[in-house]
């Protein structure tokens, strides 16, 4: 082995080099033992003789390892032992430091595991960067990103940029033949879906183009959750038949737990099949289209290509006039929404980590101060400065590792909490876990914390001239340093508190928004009729009308209403309008509105106020004159000058009949409390039988709504025993869930702010206690000269307030600079909200004052005699 190679090994793998030395020595001794035994000695004598001949095994081992350059291993082991013993002698200090670091490291680990799961982890697709989403927009509601089947087929045929395209839409199907029947969220996908994504199944196979043919047997791929839940994780599920939506469907594959596309809760994927004329209409836009870029193609190139294709189609088909085709990378669209708040969360927890590190550094400084004499003696006896710094670092590394262990335990609990109470609607949140990647980051911040906390005290300690340390003087510089650290803690805590305050105020404002209807005592549930059983439009209407009658007859029920999509569920259908007497100018956008199909009693049940005209009633039957009801926003936008009552309009994708506006109702916050309500058109369900197979029923109850769930389920069963109900929740719950995300976020940041505040308070206490000891003589002199208790208290309090004000000033500057990142998350609250910025400093000053009470009282209680003779 060349010498250079050996030297390199010694630097980069000292452990291995040390082990080789040990092995060589061991070999020697064992050879001697073998020879001795061959000469007839007993095993014990053989070994004793071998060791005697060898000499001092341990000493030679150390010397040998040192010579080979692996001496550091020994040094490190020794330092670790010294550090452990020294910490054991001061358990309160060790506990405080470990607890401080545990809080910081634990919080950071928790947040990182969430951010990793939601934002950082690559999705389970092949080459996710090559996937794009394709959709059409007319400028109206762009966040829906849908397309129509007819256009999708043409895109597939006419594009030049994609190696594959696929479409999907979410649907619901009832799983029957099992007890209880369950309604599944399904994704209906075209043949190339899994191939375009490059997704592999966990078991069996995925769907292919062959499954889309009209003559193929009905098959499906199920999700991991469904597999565990209803099939017990049995691998024999492949090939089994299940009763889905009245059909017998064969299960051909199971997906892995992390495959959650197009939604987090998809239970099952089924082939789209050839479809029907209704579904394949060019203006029925409800599918999501994805595509994989052909090799060598770029997103910009694909975009240009598809825009050209779209323009050609728009010229050919009037249904496409005014619509453009958009192309964008898929992955940011999937997870991009979650990125900003999670990054803010990362920033906030970084503040907490900083505060905890500063606190730990302060603790270590305090301890270093107490050990100045010990260190000075060591220096005087010959320990090098580098060794002292190394020892200090080893100690802080040990503390950091212990803190990391405790913190990881805390993080495991916290992640469980997030999984249990976290808001829905954040993609992949359910996959948050503490795995290898997260632990690697934890280790990195642990080592970083150890360096940050340990370098400073170590450096300071080693710079002390021994003579100074042996006296009690000096320390002015040290006091300033510790004061500076505490000031930074206070500033960070202020930033976090301001952020938390803003978020909480925003949440309070949001919660106070009136939803536009009465949310109390309202039970909601959804029913989805299978097409096979309820093929006939009349049968569907009859079912819902009879169901509403039966539920209405239950004791404790005041009224029942039905609507397709419940308000606050953030889901709605849009439709184009053609208002009679108002032709759309060429090249202009037609009017559009949210489109809601409701039962006659809906408005009354929900408590939506009637502004003008009348509600729907029994005369608005199928075959009678078509009627609609509109909301305030529609009137404001399209009939600003006159009453809309009596005016007529056509609904897009309809039979083209003119329908009369007979009533105006109040706006409802359909898309969430923070979203502005747009124009909406209501149609009685008797007059719109298509797509009526699902309804959400709202039941106004006299008693607590959840008490009636069983009775309602019974009413449904009595009509059709195979019909499940799902999404059963009281309106209050739906309301609460709709603001779950801002609430969760505000609570998290609030928690971090509290931790930072607590740590800052402890830091203030520590520094003040230190200052009091430093100024013991001064205080003694003052008392001897006549200072009263009050004056001493004021002195200490003054120190506290000085620190606090500096911290507050710095913190406000930082907060002003940083809170604008919260702007998108705040509802009707400015990022520089005066009230919050004024209240938080007051809180901090009060806390600082409170933290100074104990040191102040101790100082005031000092007897001047003891103080003056303090050694």
């Amino acid at each position, binding site marked *: 082995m060349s010498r250079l190679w050996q030297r390199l090994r010694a630097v980069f793998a000292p452990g291995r080099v040390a082990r080789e030395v040990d092995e060589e020595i061991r070999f*020697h001794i064992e050879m001697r033992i073998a020879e001795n035994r061959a000469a007839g000695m007993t095993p014990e004598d053989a070994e004793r003789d071998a060791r005697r*001949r060898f000499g001092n095994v341990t000493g*030679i081992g150390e010397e*040998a390892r040192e010579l080979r350059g692996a001496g550091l291993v020994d040094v490190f082991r020794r330092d670790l032992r010294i550090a452990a013993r020294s910490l054991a002698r001061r358990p309160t200090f060790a506990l405080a430091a470990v607890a401080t670091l545990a809080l910081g490291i634990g919080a950071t680990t928790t947040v990182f595991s969430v951010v990793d799961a939601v934002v950082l982890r690559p999705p389970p697709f092949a080459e996710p960067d090559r996937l794009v989403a394709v959709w059409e927009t007319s400028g109206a509601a762009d966040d829906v990103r849908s397309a129509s089947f007819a256009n999708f087929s043409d895109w597939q045929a006419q594009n030049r940029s994609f190696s594959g395209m696929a479409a999907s839409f979410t649907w619901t199907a009832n799983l029957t033949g099992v007890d209880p029947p369950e309604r599944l969220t399904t994704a209906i996908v075209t043949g190339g879906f899994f191939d375009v994504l490059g997704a592999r199944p966990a078991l069996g196979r995925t769907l292919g183009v062959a499954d889309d043919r009209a003559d193929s047997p009905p098959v499906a791929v199920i999700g991991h959750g469904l597999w565990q839940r209803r099939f017990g994780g049995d691998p024999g599920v492949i090939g089994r038949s299940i009763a889905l939506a009245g059909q017998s469907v064969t299960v051909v594959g199971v997906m892995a737990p992390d495959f959650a596309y197009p939604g987090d809760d998809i239970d099952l994927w089924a082939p789209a099949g050839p479809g029907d004329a209704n579904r394949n209409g060019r203006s029925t836009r409800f599918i999501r289209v994805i595509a994989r870029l052909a090799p060598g193609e770029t997103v910009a190139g694909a975009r240009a290509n598809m825009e050209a294709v779209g323009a050609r189609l728009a010229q050919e088909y009037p249904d496409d006039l005014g619509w453009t085709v958009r192309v964008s990378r898929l992955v940011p669209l999937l997870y991009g929404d979650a990125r900003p708040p999670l990054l803010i969360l990362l920033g906030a927890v970084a503040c907490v980590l900083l505060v905890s590190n500063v606190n730990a550094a302060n603790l270590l400084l305090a301890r270093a101060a107490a050990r100045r004499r010990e260190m000075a003696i060591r220096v005087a006896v010959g320990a090098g400065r580098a060794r002292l710094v190394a020892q200090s670092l080893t100690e802080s590394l040990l503390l950091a590792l212990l803190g990391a262990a405790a913190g990881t335990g805390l993080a495991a609990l916290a992640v469980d909490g997030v999984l249990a109470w976290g808001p829905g609607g954040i993609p992949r949140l359910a996959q948050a876990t503490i795995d290898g990647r997260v632990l690697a980051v934890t280790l990195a911040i642990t080592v970083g914390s150890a360096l940050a906390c340990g370098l400073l005290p170590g450096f300071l300690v080693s710079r002390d001239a021994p003579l100074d340390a042996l006296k009690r003087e000096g320390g002015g510089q040290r006091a300033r340093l510790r004061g500076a650290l505490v000031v930074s803690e206070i500033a960070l805590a202020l930033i976090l508190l301001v952020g938390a305050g803003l978020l909480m105020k925003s949440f309070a404002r949001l919660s106070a928004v009136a939803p536009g209807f009465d949310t109390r005592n309202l039970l909601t549930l959804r029913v989805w009729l299978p097409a096979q059983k309820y093929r006939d439009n009349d049968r569907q209407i009859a079912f819902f009308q009879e169901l509403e009658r039966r539920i209405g007859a239950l004791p404790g029920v005041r009224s029942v209403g039905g609507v397709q999509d419940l308000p606050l569920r953030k889901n709605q259908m849009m439709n184009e309008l053609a208002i009679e007497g108002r032709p759309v100018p060429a090249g202009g956008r037609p009017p559009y509105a949210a489109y809601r199909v409701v039962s006659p009693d809906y408005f009354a049940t929900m408590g939506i106020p009637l502004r003008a005209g009348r509600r729907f009633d029994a005369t608005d039957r199928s075959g009678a004159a078509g009627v609609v009801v509109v909301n305030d926003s529609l009137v404001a936008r399209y009939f600003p000058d006159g009453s809309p009552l009596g005016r007529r309009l056509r609904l897009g994708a309809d039979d083209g009949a003119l329908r009369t506006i007979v009533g105006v109702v109040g706006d409802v916050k359909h898309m969430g409390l923070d979203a502005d309500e747009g124009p909406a058109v209501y149609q009685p369900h008797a007059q719109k039988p298509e797509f009526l197979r699902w309804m959400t029923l709202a039941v106004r109850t006299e008693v607590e709504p959840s008490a009636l769930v069983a009775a309602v389920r019974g009413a449904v069963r009595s009509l059709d025993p195979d019909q499940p109900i799902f999404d059963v929740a009281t309106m209050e719950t739906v309301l609460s869930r709709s603001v779950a995300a801002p609430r969760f976020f505000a609570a998290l940041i609030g928690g971090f702010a509290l931790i930072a505040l607590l740590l800052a308070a402890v830091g203030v206490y520590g520094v003040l206690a230190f200052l009091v000891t430093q100024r013991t003589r001064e205080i003694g002199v003052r008392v001897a000269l006549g200072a009263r208790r009050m004056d001493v208290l004021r002195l200490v309090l003054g120190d506290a307030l000085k620190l606090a004000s500096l911290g507050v000033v710095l913190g406000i500057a930082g907060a002003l600079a940083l809170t604008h990142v919260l702007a998108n998350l705040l509802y009707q609250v400015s990022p520089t909200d005066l009230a919050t910025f004024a209240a938080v400093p007051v809180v901090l000053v009060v806390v600082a004052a409170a933290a100074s009470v104990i040191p102040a009282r101790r100082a005031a209680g000092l007897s001047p005699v003891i103080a003056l003779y303090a050694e």
Partner: protein
Amino acid sequence: MERAPRSDLLQGTLDMLVLKTLRRGASHGYDIARWIQRTSDDALQVEEGSLYPALYRMEERGWIRSEWGTTENNRRARYYQLTPKGRRQLEAEAESWQRLSIAIAKIMETT
């Protein structure tokens, strides 16, 4: 923790003996110790452990080099062998040892 060498003289002598041993061919540390012992008829009872620091120092100086190998019993052991530089060092030391012993002998012969 430094172990002071026994005496400078002995340290340098040990080095020379090791180099001489290795002139016969590559050996591992145990073989070197045994050969020195046997060849000197057990007169030289070197503390066997001190061999290894010596070997490492000599390797640092470039007089010998080492390699992992296997013994007849299929065990892993580190084998050392002379480098050209080591050969030259051996000659130099042998020569100076010769002169030293002649000088001492001369002194001891006088009364």
